[in-house]
């Protein structure tokens, strides 16, 4: 009798201990989640409220955590500045052109490496991947010499589209390579029996089927080019071709930093990215891990 009671209370105590452990676990987990989300979004919040502060509130000490009198004047000034809208347009045009070009070239290569067998296939894939890891600063010098001399492209879209292909091609090929490989093989067989050539199969069957993959890789490419700063800084000189990442730094000149306008411009440049991320997070994660993990 006594022994049984002992056993029961032992079991109870063990259960209690487990419950306590589980509670701590849940608490720790929630705390970690809150911290991660806070740390991730705090700079965005600070930028947003800084962009909404008027000239007076901007420099109050200590800085206010909520804008007391939200004010859109920073945004008006940003859009009225002579360089912001042109550079924004440059970025959009350069990013879409580069994305299209690298899709055009990359789809062919991804198809060949995914579904055809040929000598040198692994070499092609590792070459494509290693390009992504080059220090781009080392290309800037020779490209500058080339684009200001023999092949005069300095300060044109071409001067950025050409090197930006290096940012998008590896990503496009690796991602589509893994996407094409997962497509069923019977499809191709059936199409070939029906007399379709490989290219025709690629154009009329594989690409339409892989449309979701092509779409996500287009988004990833667009983001990659949109985010370039180094090439934009060194290979263009004014709003004729400068991307917005460089345009934005003009609000932060050597003598004075226009904090409100810098913040407003940052918000304008990043909000499209935030929306893309929220809408397409699953696809982006899939693309990110497919493109980068198969070393």
């Amino acid at each position: 009798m006594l022994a049984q009671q002992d056993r029961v209370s032992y079991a109870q105590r063990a259960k209690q201990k487990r419950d306590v452990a589980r509670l701590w676990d849940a608490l720790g987990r929630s705390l970690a989640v809150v911290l991660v989300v806070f740390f991730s979004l705090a700079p965005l919040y600070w930028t947003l409220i800084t962009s909404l502060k008027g000239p007076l509130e901007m420099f109050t000490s200590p800085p206010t955590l909520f804008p007391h009198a939200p004010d859109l004047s920073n945004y008006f000034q940003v859009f009225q500045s002579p360089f912001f809208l042109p550079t924004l347009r440059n970025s959009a045009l350069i990013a879409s052109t580069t994305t299209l070009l690298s899709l055009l070239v990359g789809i062919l290569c991804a198809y060949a490496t995914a579904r055809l067998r040929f000598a040198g296939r692994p070499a092609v894939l590792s070459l494509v991947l290693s390009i992504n890891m080059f220090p781009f600063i080392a290309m800037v010098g020779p490209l500058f010499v080339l684009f200001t001399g023999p092949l005069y492209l300095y300060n044109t879209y071409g001067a950025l589209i050409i090197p930006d292909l290096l940012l998008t091609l590896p990503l496009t090929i690796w991602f589509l390579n893994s996407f094409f490989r997962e497509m069923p093989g019977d499809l191709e067989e059936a199409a070939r029996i029906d007399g379709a050539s490989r290219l025709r199969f690629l154009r009329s069957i594989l690409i339409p089927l892989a449309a979701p993959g092509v779409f996500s890789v287009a988004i990833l490419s667009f983001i990659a080019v949109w985010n370039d700063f180094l090439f934009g800084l060194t290979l263009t000189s004014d709003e004729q071709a400068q991307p917005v990442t460089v345009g934005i730094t003009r609000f932060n000149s050597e003598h004075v930093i226009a904090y409100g306008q810098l913040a407003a411009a940052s918000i304008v440049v990043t909000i499209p990215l935030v929306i893309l991320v929220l809408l397409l997070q699953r696809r982006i994660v899939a693309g990110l891990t497919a493109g980068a993990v198969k070393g």
Partner: protein
Amino acid sequence: MAIRTEQTAPENMEQAAFAPRRGRVSGRLLPYFLVLPTLLVILAVGIYPMLDSFWVSILDNPLVFHPNIVGLANYFQVLSDPVFQEALRTTLIFTVISVCLEMLLGFGVALLMNRAFAGRGAVRAAILVPWAFPTVVSAQMWLLMYNDQVGIITTLLQRMHLLAPGATMLGSSQGVLLASLITDIWKTTPFAALLLLAGLQVIPSSLYEAASIDGANRWQQLWRITLPMLKSQLLVVLLFRTLDAIRVFDLFYVFGGQSVPSLASYANLKMFAGTPGDFAPGVATAVLVFLIGVVISLVLVSMMRETIKRA
């Protein structure tokens, strides 16, 4: 997603290869025609400028019509420049600390997200936000918090007496390094976390079940199952992050400016903010960044080979 070095081709491939050729392009040559445009682009835009940078780095002034070859003089000039030595030190410290912390934190976030819980999607969206931002814009956003006039971080640090009144983090080289580290960790931990999470998700749960039946506690499971199973993934992240950190540019361009450059921003300053005679030494610096990257890749890739062999 696991590392696949050997691509498995669809099974019908052999059959297809023997099927009668119908296209105008001969079937056997077709793959080469398909990869040719990519190879040409990579050759013209990647390999050629990369190799050309070696050539440019031994000229006296590549921007004039007939430059002279000066051998390794540009390298000697750069290597003996105290600013370069400082930039090298800054970059190496930045690389070691940022890569270690990002992998550690990324592993933590990956473990956190590896279990289903309410709000997991929200966490994933939140950590993807910094990843998607242009680095240079992220740097400007953090500058809004680091600066001395409207910055919240400066205000907090001054309140805690970690900074003298009127001082900022960006006033000292350690401060610039710290500011760059924080911003880089904020921006790239998600990348590490998502890659490691992809690795965690392919570890079979039966391993953990068997281990807990055998009485292994969580700590033992972490050391004996998770880490060994994740080893190749960890090495991939290590390689990617290290090569990315060694070429860090945007952060030091914004936070360090002329006074606390990284190797890449030092190279950029030399090329575009110095005299014409500084251009080639700038290129030489960039070549050095490339060579450091090559050494790191060789070491890490040989480590990867070994783990794959052992596995």
